[in-house]
């Protein structure tokens, strides 16, 4: 008799989700699905609200990377007020960039130290008591204190640029409503012994060494776990370098051939479409030119390191070269290498923050640009978890007429489903007893994508993981909460 396994809730990722695995009569994995179980309806709720509210309202999709939504929304509204993505004043754009790199830094630190490190330090098969940040703090206190302090640094940058650590307010249509005070600047540049930008750069380098050593010892696992070919998509700067705040859309296939060649993101509708499946609230985007079947792609740190030609900061560039050399310059398709890629971006973000903090434009007073009112705007940024699209149409009375959102985790939907299927086949086939550790392997695969399921369904919360076994007739045979 065929069976179905459900994991619910998936924990230590941000959002609500559930995994079901269907087994065939012989006990082999037939199908595995990540269901996203939350729905908010932001596209409709925002209709009728004044466009001025967009950057402040829409970030409440997600409290984990609100800055990304704040800025993608603001960039879309920049178009509506006729300033466009490249018409901001230097102070306006650089303040937003500092906010964004602060966000990238805190989010990547949070993911690595608070959520993923228990798997790496204790192993995915470790007991449930160990698989959390509390155990990390107890057994590796120095590492935990570094992680907490790095996240705090990013959050303090956000506070200084956005006005609040979570759900800030400073990005306004056409610019920013404050500059960076000298006192704040010096606090970040000089600060205290363990709280300044140089320390953040040093610690970022050190944590990359940690993951490289981990990889040396565990290359068998890291290279094969949920590794599968895919396309990769991200923004890149017009010169081909990494740019997380602004650029053009580029996609490459598993061999590195460009399948979307640096196009203007304001025309994203031409290039990207979404499919809906009955069993998940999260949609499945794909590249129009290739179609549903093979046009899906990955986004996020791994994808970005596959699409860009270089990273425009020296230390991260050095790490990037080593990362790319490992796959001989070809795209890296190994899911667990996302952790490595994420930490290279952590370092890049620290270097960018340092560069910006030393830029006198941040103390400028020309904050907001003005232009001729348009009816429509698209804003795209590279959020910590990948490419994030916001699109608004605005009525003559300044109210929002329509809204479309494709968030990072949605872009990774098919990839996460593939990863779950891959691991299910590798670890569950033919196994009679389902252990917690085994199930956690499935979560590890999902967690590598750092999915923010709250964002994805335009909702957030704990990602619940329950595993149920169903037979081929859809009858519940067994169930286990991990």
């Amino acid at each position, binding site marked *: 008799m065929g069976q179905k396994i459900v994991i619910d*809730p998936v*924990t*230590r990722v*941000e*959002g609500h989700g559930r995994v*079901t695995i269907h087994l065939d009569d012989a006990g082999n994995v037939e199908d595995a699905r990540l*269901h996203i*179980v*939350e*729905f*908010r*309806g*932001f*596209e*409709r*709720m925002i*209709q009728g609200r004044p466009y001025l509210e967009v950057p402040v309202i829409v970030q*409440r999709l*997600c*409290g984990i990377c609100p800055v990304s939504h704040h800025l993608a929304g603001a960039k879309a509204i920049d178009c509506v007020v006729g300033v466009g993505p490249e018409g901001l004043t230097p102070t306006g754009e650089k303040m937003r960039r500092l906010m964004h790199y602060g966000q990238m830094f805190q989010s990547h630190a*949070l993911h690595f130290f*608070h*959520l993923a490190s228990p798997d790496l330090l204790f192993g995915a098969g470790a007991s*449930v008591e160990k*698989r*959390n940040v*509390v155990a990390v*703090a107890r057994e590796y*206190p120095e590492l*935990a*204190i570094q992680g*907490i302090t790095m*996240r*705090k640094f990013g*959050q303090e940058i956000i506070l200084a640029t956005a006005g609040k*650590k*979570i759900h800030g307010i400073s990005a306004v249509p056409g610019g920013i409503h404050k500059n960076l005070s000298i006192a704040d600047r010096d606090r970040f540049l000089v600060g205290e012994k363990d709280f300044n930008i140089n320390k953040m750069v040093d610690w970022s380098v050190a944590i990359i060494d940690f993951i490289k050593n981990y990889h040396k010892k565990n290359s068998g696992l890291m290279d094969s776990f949920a590794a599968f070919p895919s396309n990769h998509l991200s923004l890149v700067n017009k010169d081909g370098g990494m740019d997380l705040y602004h650029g053009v859309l580029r996609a490459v296939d598993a061999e590195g051939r460009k399948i979307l060649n640096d196009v203007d993101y304001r025309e994203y*509708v031409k290039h990207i*479409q*979404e*499919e*809906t499946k*009955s*069993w*998940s*609230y999260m949609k499945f*985007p794909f590249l129009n030119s290739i179609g549903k079947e093979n046009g899906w792609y990955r986004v996020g740190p791994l994808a970005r390191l596959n699409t860009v030609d270089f990273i425009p900061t020296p230390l991260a560039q050095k790490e990037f070269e080593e990362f790319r050399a490992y796959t001989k310059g070809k795209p890296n398709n190994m899911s667990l290498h996302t952790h490595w890629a994420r930490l290279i971006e952590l370092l890049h973000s620290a270097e960018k923050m340092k560069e910006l903090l030393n830029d006198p434009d941040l103390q400028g007073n020309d904050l907001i640009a003005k232009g001729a009112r348009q009816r429509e705007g698209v804003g795209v940024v590279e959020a910590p978890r990948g490419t994030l699209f916001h699109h608004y149409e605005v009525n003559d009375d300044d109210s929002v007429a*329509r*809204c*479309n959102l494709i968030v990072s985790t949605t872009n990774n939907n098919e990839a996460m489903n593939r990863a779950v299927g891959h691991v299910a086949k590798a670890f569950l086939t033919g196994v009679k007893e389902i252990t917690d550790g085994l199930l*956690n392997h499935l979560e590890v695969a999902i967690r590598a994508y750092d999915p923010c399921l*709250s964002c994805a369904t335009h*909702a*957030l*919360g*704990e990602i*619940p*993981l329950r595993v149920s076994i169903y037979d081929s007739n859809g009858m519940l045979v067994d169930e286990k*909460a*991990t």
Partner: protein
Amino acid sequence: MRKKIVATTSLAGCFGCHMSILDIDLRLVDLIELVEFNRSPITDIKKISKRCDIGLIEGGICNDENYHVLKEFRENCEVLVSVGECAIMGGLPALRNNIPIRECFEEAYRNVPTSKSGGGIIPNDDELPIILDRVYPCHELVKIDYFLPGCPPRADLIWETLLALVTSGAELPYELVKYD
């Protein structure tokens, strides 16, 4: 003295309140000396496994699953706290309360410009929870003992509240209790 046991969950929220808990920064290290965490998104404990002293709820109630989790918390926690605007009054997700849910689905899955080839499906599956007619504040469905305002409540407020509950009798400084 036995450590107080704390459980936390995010229902129809954005996780910002949980992020604000993490914003207590290095006090986290002190916190784990004072309390033991049970079910929480930061642990891998997925159902409350023993009687808890304190339950922190982020988010309101938008589907049947949220309601079951809220009930689980009320039945197993001595003190239940609504953390943040969504738990207290539905918050931003409750913007949909004046809109028929059908319209929200239509917009998200059929009307957006990237769904032309989506085939017009609206998700509907046994694995998906049942969406409620509107988003409810927690205290409309179960008894809530305390309310922490803010979107999200500031880390200092969360920290002082936990200290006050753990050491019982300590008072919250009035200046800490602020709306946004």
